[in-house]
């Protein structure tokens, strides 16, 4: 009981992570005159037209929605900086320095302040590439977990949130096995069952797909090269016929 529902309590939904990210400061250029705002979370203002001022992201988005300001994209969101960060991510194993909430901030700005960002499509594709590369690194680093403390430099809030539940339970299982606690608990039986389920189909699949998949890959390569060279269109035709007719037949006749 403690294992299953415990994880629900400690999980942050993506909306909650975004809520926390909305407190980050951004620069805006208002186009109206307004007195200082004395909020519970701080004082901002006074606002003069065309004079830049730093406000929290939620306030900037609210003003932008009502057409009262333009948002200046933050320094780290320039194309030069993002290209540099992307190259750095691809070359090294470590994470590059990015703001903790870069995912949420960039997403909110793309959704609601698109016209304030120069070359928005380029910036957007760079941010998505960076996200993919970083998450791929997170996945490969997950293989190096041990039972003791694991440290990570420069990981962002959304990435942390995605792997929070899984890594917490994995580390707990490692820790328990290493310390050989004799307490029987529900978590262990739950962990055992999924393993058994995965074992059986894996054996079946590897046994039955040997005739098909490696052949698949080789023909795929030949077809690709021949298409490039425009050498033999008939190979392409034969390959397509193979895919459409023969493979499904083989799959249906495969012993279970």
């Amino acid at each position, binding site marked *: *009981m*403690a*294992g299953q*529902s*415990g994880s629900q*309590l*400690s999980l*942050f939904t993506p909306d909650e992570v975004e*809520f*926390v990210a909305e*407190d980050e*400061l951004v620069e805006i250029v208002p186009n109206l005159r*307004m*007195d200082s*705002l*004395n*909020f*519970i*979370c*701080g*004082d*901002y203002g006074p606002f003069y037209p065309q004079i830049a*001022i*730093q406000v929290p992201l*939620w*306030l900037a988005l*609210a*003003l932008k929605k*009502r057409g*009262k300001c333009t948002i200046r994209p933050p320094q780290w969101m320039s194309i030069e900086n993002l290209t540099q960060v992307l190259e750095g991510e691809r070359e090294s194993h470590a994470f590059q320095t990015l703001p903790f909430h870069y995912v949420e901030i960039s997403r909110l700005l793309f959704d609601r302040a698109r016209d304030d960002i120069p070359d928005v499509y380029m910036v957007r594709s760079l941010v998505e590439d960076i996200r993919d590369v970083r998450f791929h690194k997170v996945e490969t680093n997950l293989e190096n977990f041990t039972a*003791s*403390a*694991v*440290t*990570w*430099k420069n*990981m962002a*809030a959304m990435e*942390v949130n995605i792997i*929070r539940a899984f*890594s*917490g339970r994995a*580390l*707990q299982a490692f*820790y*328990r096995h290493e310390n050989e606690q004799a307490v029987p608990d529900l978590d262990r039986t739950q962990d055992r069952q999924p393993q058994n389920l995965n074992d059986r189909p894996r054996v079946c699949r590897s046994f039955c797909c040997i005739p098909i998949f490696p052949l698949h890959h080789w023909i795929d390569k030949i077809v690709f090269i021949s298409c490039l060279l425009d050498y033999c269109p008939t190979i392409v035709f034969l390959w397509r016929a193979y895919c459409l007719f023969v493979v499904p037949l083989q799959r249906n006749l495969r012993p279970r």
Partner: protein
Amino acid sequence: MDSGTGEGSTSFTDDYETFISTTDVDLLKRAWRNEKAAPEILQYEAALRSSLQEQNVEASEADGEDPLTMSLYQMDLDRTQFLLRSYLRVRLQKIEKYIFHILKTDESLNRLSDEEQTFAASCGDDLRAHLKETVLSKLPTDYNSELKQSAASEEDDMVPAPRLDSFVICKARQYISGLDFEPEYSHEITEMERDLLTFVCYKFIKKPLENGKIDLV
């Protein structure tokens, strides 16, 4: 902790701001995150709650100037109230989950506020009565306790306790040396650098967390 007017001035750097003062909302956000991420219930922030309630009352009484300013003040109020309500709701969920354990241990009971203690007592009574009526009264005398499996058990083994060996993600707010940790865990974790994300077992960092040196993420 000043009320209302925190140091929101824009030209200060982050370090200076945290050095001078942090607003109540920052403290509440930190308490909310810690409470959500921790497996057991933490100390109740009574002073924070009372000062925030005063500010809520002030803000909702503010006279309407123009609709724009009113809606912005309302948004700020909504955000703060969401944090406060979510904080209280998470604590209530934890109380309900570990109700018998909290009623048993004085340490946990002292971390609750007065209203939460009343709630816990009445919730425990209701649950006990319900279990007795539906199941326990029909079992033989040796097995009808809601705290013990049978009369032969030495401890209360029917009471689920919070899992203190679950792993949490945390960041240290300053450099933490081995002295800040409990001595029995000193061979597991010796130091923690500032602002480095660490996945660690909750019980190792329990003491620095209570002293406010670590934030859970």
